């Protein structure tokens, strides 16, 4: 049973575009929603995270939008750059329990 559904599986945008990656979750007990970024040949690393008591969080060019009633959250990358090309994973967890990851989105930003 996949508790975190992520789309799209892959995404190609032009430099300067705003890629959007969407995730939906089922377990209403989740209270921590991180996004991880993974470059080829590397392990994932935390990019940005949000709690359900806020609807948006920005860190630099990266923004999480959170819709608690719809049980959905998304990652927006403003002014995307070729260096943002990576695989992005959304995830969810409850308190200190293990994290459930989405299936990943491979983003390619072309110059």
């Amino acid at each position, binding site marked *: 049973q996949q508790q975190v559904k992520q789309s799209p599986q892959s995404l190609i945008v032009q430099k300067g575009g705003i890629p959007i990656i969407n995730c939906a979750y089922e377990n209403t007990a989740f209270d921590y929603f991180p996004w991880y970024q993974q470059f080829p040949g590397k392990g994932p690393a935390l990019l940005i995270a949000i709690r359900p008591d806020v609807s948006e969080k920005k860190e630099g060019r990266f923004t999480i939008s959170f819709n608690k009633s719809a049980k959905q959250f998304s990652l927006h990358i403003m002014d995307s750059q070729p260096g943002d090309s990576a695989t992005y994973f959304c995830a969810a967890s409850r308190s*200190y329990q*293990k994290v459930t990851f989405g299936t990943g989105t491979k983003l390619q930003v072309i110059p």
Partner: protein
Amino acid sequence: NAGVTQTPKFRVLKTGQSMTLLCAQDMNHEYMYWYRQDPGMGLRLIHYSVGEGTTAKGEVPDGYNVSRLKKQNFLLGLESAAPSQTSVYFCASSYPSGWDVSYNEQFFGPGTRLTVL
């Protein structure tokens, strides 16, 4: 600090062979995890540990065993490798740090690419 390290980086096994993957962390983290990453499947949790001497099953534990004899090390064993276990294996560690948005941040190692022929 080295963070999370994994040994080996690459390995090729024949069906039925056994091997152990070693994960080490120097951040004094309590929690450690083993994941496998397959195309289109994301990161799937194999086993995890919430402290020295404790382990628990994750989403896909069959065919794997683990041990956490020391806080800084988490070993993943394959007793009889099968082609279905061809994957990239990631170890991660974390330490719940209270109510802020970075709590339970997982720190990943560089991965081990395993091929079972």
